[in-house]
């Protein structure tokens, strides 16, 4: 689950974000504790805390003193906007560069995307 490429705290933050986007962690629901994340991913609790802290700084999660961490209202929309913004750089550009390498023209690529989009 944890891979080498990215900082671990960033991966923890992304996984929580994914759960919020998918609805597995609804808004205003309680998020597992830092120690639970650490135990589950077998990582240092301080590292898990850093990932959670990043989302608190971004306003995605908020702290209720003595109770725990919760998903903010509007967090899902905020994350979707952020992900849409990075979609081009993260997915479209690598796709085009790989297509170019294989000699797939932009028109062919368009067709492929339309076909697959309709099939799924």
């Amino acid at each position: 689950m944890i891979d080498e490429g990215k900082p671990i705290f960033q991966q923890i933050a992304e996984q929580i974000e994914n759960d919020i986007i998918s609805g597995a962690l609804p808004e205003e629901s309680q998020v597992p504790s830092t120690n639970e994340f650490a135990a589950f991913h077998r990582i240092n609790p301080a590292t898990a805390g850093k990932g959670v802290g990043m989302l608190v700084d971004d306003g995605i999660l908020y702290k209720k003193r003595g109770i725990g961490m919760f998903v903010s209202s509007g967090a899902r929309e905020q994350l979707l906007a952020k992900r849409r913004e990075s979609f081009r750089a993260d997915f479209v550009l690598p796709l085009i560069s790989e297509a170019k390498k294989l000699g797939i023209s932009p028109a062919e690529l368009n067709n492929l995307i339309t076909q697959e989009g309709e099939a799924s």
Partner: protein
Amino acid sequence: MTDTATPVVEVDGLTKRFGDVVALDDVTLSVRSGAITGLLGRNGAGKTTLMQTITGQDFASSGTIRVFGEHPVENAKVLSRISFIKESQKYPDEFKPKHVFACAPWFYENWDADFAAQLIDDFQLPVNRRIKKMSRGQLSAVGVIVGLAARAPLTFFDEPYLGLDAVARQIFYDRLIADYGEHPRTIILSTHLIDEVANILEHVVVIDKGRIIMDESAESARDSATTVVGPRGAVDAFVATRKVLHREGVGGLASVTVERLDADERRDALAAGLELAPVSLQQLIVRTTNSTVTEFAESASAVNGVRS
């Protein structure tokens, strides 16, 4: 976990000689309070000597050591807060594990007997067997249980798991993470199984031939090197001005490990059609503790040999 300003351990200019052998060579180090630090290095690098000197079991030839702000040698106030679990702990001949666990609370004021009982169960340790009749793995389990259940403010694990199988080691890591999360304390873990502990460490200290060659957060150690893979010409052009930690190649392909690349450099590499691969902590340490100048020259000429 905690941001206590004073380090728990402060070592300054520590040198330890055994006759002609310099085991520790001008070591300066401070250990962060409340963190899990990995003390890593090859056999004979000086890890155990460093821990023995810090815990007052051995004298420094020169330099100063402060543990909880005080000199550790024969200092009960300091030593009562330390637990040092080593590979080759000796016990009295007739001792059984139950005797060890019965004595433990005399030495460790935070001793948690319930936690110890749970760990005995987890490791399926026969508490009534005489210690000299036990297997290497069972002996290691005794040490691990003492080290965890003692909850000493400063805990050293020096290769604690000789003979423990993969399942038992996983139990150790899981209990360590969970208990440290509940009861944060300063832990120094020395091991050769770097891949297994990499994600558990918050800080990494690497010692090689008695000198500290790396002392940084695990996070920054993780991205302190990158492997660049691609056609030899393109890779050579890209790494020409950089510090090369390791190189290998097959056919026209080269794989070269270089020091940290920033975002712009990564983009340049990708634009040049090169692939970037992360370097695990273990690989990084193998590269940095193994790469003498001659070995470098040899591997470079071997690579050149493939080309001609």
